[in-house]
């Protein structure tokens, strides 16, 4: 059972200061260029925590960095009677207890998805686990969705029922607090001075805010219909081809996407005798993504490159995990200069679907 509290807005800064004594603090911070990004806060007094704009980045890179060293390796050709010796040394990341503050529902939901990918499949990913292990999430429900948001259609917002440690709702002069996972409950117990009881009026207001938020989405995206159409038949080749041609191979959509987790592993030689094994973000839209030794490529990049991206989100993950893996954050809409975002795909698909996909080739 979720417990509810009130946190006065004046008390937020002091609470974060207390937490930052024992935890690394990460929040959406507006930088000198006017960009709002999730950033580690080292000086709370001078950091501009921006809760008015959608953070341009998600939390993905904090658990699954754009580039990380998995291990270093050493080669020695002389040591053992001229035989090559080859050894590997794991480079595990530091486990730093972190409070993530100001996480929007879509991004919170995305963390739950990446947990499933990295922790609950065939093998546990200890690099991800190490970074993810001692995190506390203080999320914020969205009273007013941002311009490209459609989390209502993907059922990953604007408010969540779980997954967070604490979820906040803006009630004007105060935050309405809901506890989620045990760490959130513990947090309210450790700092009882900050968390005061709620009144019936607060509860009503919170309910009202949540209800109103659902009516404020500016984009109507037919995610369920797209999922249904894709479960029944193949997407029209015309759409796949047109969007594939418009794709410029930049990978921006995958990098900005909070649930895209494809990666590359490659060796970076430091000198003749040593190097590092690097894991870095990759994108299924890249033309070399499926290229094999001997130059055989089972995927035709020119006409097919976007097929995997959209089918993975809207069909394959539905088959595998019971729901689409798009969280409706809308970041790819802003990111793609070719207009090859998931909303465009869903719009084209559902428009074609009105006449029945079967007839179209």
């Amino acid at each position, binding site marked *: 059972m979720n417990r509810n509290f009130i946190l006065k807005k004046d008390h937020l800064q002091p609470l974060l200061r207390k937490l930052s004594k024992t935890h690394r603090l990460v929040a959406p911070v507006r930088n000198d260029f006017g960009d709002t990004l999730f950033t580690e806060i080292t000086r709370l007094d001078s950091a501009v925590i921006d809760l008015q704009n959608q953070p341009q980045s998600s939390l993905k890179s904090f658990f699954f960095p754009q580039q990380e060293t998995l291990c270093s390796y050493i080669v020695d050709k002389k040591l053992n009677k001229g035989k090559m010796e080859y050894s*590997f040394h794991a480079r595990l990341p530091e486990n730093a207890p972190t409070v993530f503050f100001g996480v929007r529902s879509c991004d919170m939901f995305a963390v739950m998805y990446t947990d499933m990918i990295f922790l609950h499949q065939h093998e546990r990913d200890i690099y991800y686990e190490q970074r993810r292990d001692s995190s506390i999430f203080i999320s914020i429900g969205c009273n007013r969705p941002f311009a490209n948001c459609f989390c209502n259609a993907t059922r990953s917002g604007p408010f969540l029922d779980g997954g967070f440690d604490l979820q906040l709702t803006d009630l004007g002069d105060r935050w309405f607090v809901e506890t989620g996972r045990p760490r959130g409950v513990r947090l309210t117990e450790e700092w009882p001075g900050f968390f005061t009881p709620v009144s019936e009026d607060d509860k009503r207001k919170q309910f009202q805010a949540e209800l109103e938020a659902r009516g404020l989405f500016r984009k109507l995206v037919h995610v369920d219909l797209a999922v249904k159409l894709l479960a029944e038949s193949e997407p029209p080749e015309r759409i796949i081809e047109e969007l594939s041609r418009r794709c410029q191979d930049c990978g921006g959509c995958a990098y900005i996407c909070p649930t895209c987790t494809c990666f590359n592993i490659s060796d970076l030689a430091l000198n003749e005798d040593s190097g590092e094994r690097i894991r870095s973000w990759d994108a299924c839209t890249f033309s070399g993504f499926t290229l094999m030794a001997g130059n055989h490529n089972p995927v035709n990049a020119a006409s097919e490159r976007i097929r995997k991206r959209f089918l993975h989100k809207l069909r394959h993950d539905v088959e595998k995990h019971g729901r689409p893996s798009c969280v409706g954050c809308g970041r790819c809409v802003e990111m793609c200069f070719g207009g090859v975002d998931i909303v465009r795909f869903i719009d084209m698909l559902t428009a074609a679907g009105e006449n029945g996909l079967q007839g179209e080739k």
Partner: protein
Amino acid sequence: MMRNYNSRQTAKPGKKPVPLFADRNAYLPLRAIIKDIVEENELVKTFAVVFEDEIYNTNFTYLPGQFLMLSMPHCGEAPISFSSSPSRPGSFSLTIRKAGKLTSAVHELQPGDMIGVRGPYGKPFPFEEMRRHDLLFVAGGIGMAPLRSVIEFCLDYRADYGDIKVLYGCKTPADFCFRQDLEKWAGEGLITTRFTVDAACEEWNGCVGLVTDLLDDVTISAGSVKALVCGPGVMIRFVAERLLRSGLPAGDIITTLERHMKCGIGVCGHCHYDSRMICTDGPVFTVSQLPDLESL
């Protein structure tokens, strides 16, 4: 129940077996040593490999059809299937064709040199379903490597299987791998073999034509035979289509696919094939599991 093919070999007395998968780092390779190298042909070598850790080596096992990720200095990793059978423990074999940067570096290795390996990964051939059936192996070029593992395995449990027939096609006579092994087993009456090359040449007095042509002389009795097919994608497609036309159900045609891979554990995304990952859902599939034969 699966027969106890997968049981670990008993460790030497006095040495406690180490748990193989206890809290391990899935991405960290283990050190292994090249014991022996056989040159199959100009482009293909078979490497016999042992783990440096003797206890691990004694306990290590796998099944035909599975693969491992092979590390080479400065080259990263590549998926390589086992070409030996786990029924002959002590070491395992990797048969590698010189095709790119990593495999070219592997070809430079000498006995005693070290490589990095992690695995085994992937789903093996369905031995439980193959038992009590005739087996028809159809291989093209280097595609013989994973099938050799199966053949050797089946020979070690010979009574479990009916007739074993091996059809093997290559571009030229110089491209065959394991031909001595195959001919030796044929000589002992354990299997029957047919070889073919794509084009006629002086040093070849055998069959000429595609491996599908060899199927013309084979009687397929649906229900009692399982076909195991491996080779280039287009060869798999034509053999599978030919077998389907002969009345063999798609579920009885088994193949193993190749893809670019980075992790081997179903996460990195590179080996996607429709909704599946070749590394964890495969690499062994029946034709009935494949969405189509065109995109192999």
